[in-house]
């Protein structure tokens, strides 16, 4: 294997790992939203249904950046696989 090919594959896989650091953000954001949701249910148990709906909607939006990172990591691993054949 030529060195450049090896380097491309290695850095692509490394980049995929770095990209997945973005998983931190959605984790913190979703946890914060869930905590606030629990607080809200504790304060107003009768509004449980609409609180959960709103919370999950917010969490889904917060998740977007993590999903983008996952898609990028996936493309990078696909690139490494393609280079290594």
């Amino acid at each position, binding site marked *: 294997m030529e060195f450049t090919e090896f380097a491309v594959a290695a850095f692509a896989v490394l980049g995929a790992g770095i990209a997945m650091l973005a998983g931190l953000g959605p984790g913190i954001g979703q946890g914060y939203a869930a905590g606030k949701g629990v607080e809200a249910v504790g304060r107003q148990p009768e509004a449980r249904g609409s609180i959960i*709906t709103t919370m999950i909607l917010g969490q889904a939006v917060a*998740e*977007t950046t993590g*999903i*983008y990172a996952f898609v990028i990591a996936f493309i990078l691993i696909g690139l490494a696989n393609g280079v290594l054949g």
Partner: protein
Amino acid sequence: MDKALEGASVVFEIFGIPITETIVSTWIVMVVIIIGAYLITRSFKRLPSGVQNIAEALVEGINDFTVQTMGEKNRWFASYAGTLLIFIFLANISGLFGLWPPTADTGTTIGLGIMTFFIIQYQGIKNKGIGLYLKNILLEPIPILFAPMNIISELATPISLAFRLFGNILAGVVVMGLIYSVVPIVVPIPLHIYFDLFAGLLQSFIFVMLTMVFVSMAIETE
């Protein structure tokens, strides 16, 4: 794992058009929906019994869900929302039956996103009128300067919808593939419940709910 990395493989070709696993699973989902709809609605009675109860509860649930999210005057949207919900849910859980989930392919999800995009734009023009619609895009909040931003944010809506669904389902497929390559027996069973059933239902709900929110934002006239 390798399977998940390569994506849906080509099953056969018709006149040079490659037919991938995605298309085959979509056909299977379509057949299940069509036959299911035919069998369930064939013998409806005035007093519901058996499977008719389930069908009525489903329709009522979707109607209530739409009214709760979009308001009473947008009850008509329930037909589209329900179709989308049933299709995406069945597509998501098709991984349980050994199929490649159609929603783990950008082709399907971007198609769904484009449908939503056109509904949003059509409802915006219809309810605001072409003048106010163009004014909102071109002259708000600063004339002309912000027009590119507004256009990009309109175009980003279907893309983020599509990639959210695609990424979530593909993540499930990849993680399941990893687990199958390490422990092929017993352990994957509870994880299938989470990654296929729970995530599948949740993601279909989120896709439909976000569609409803975007459409009702387009309908609202200030």
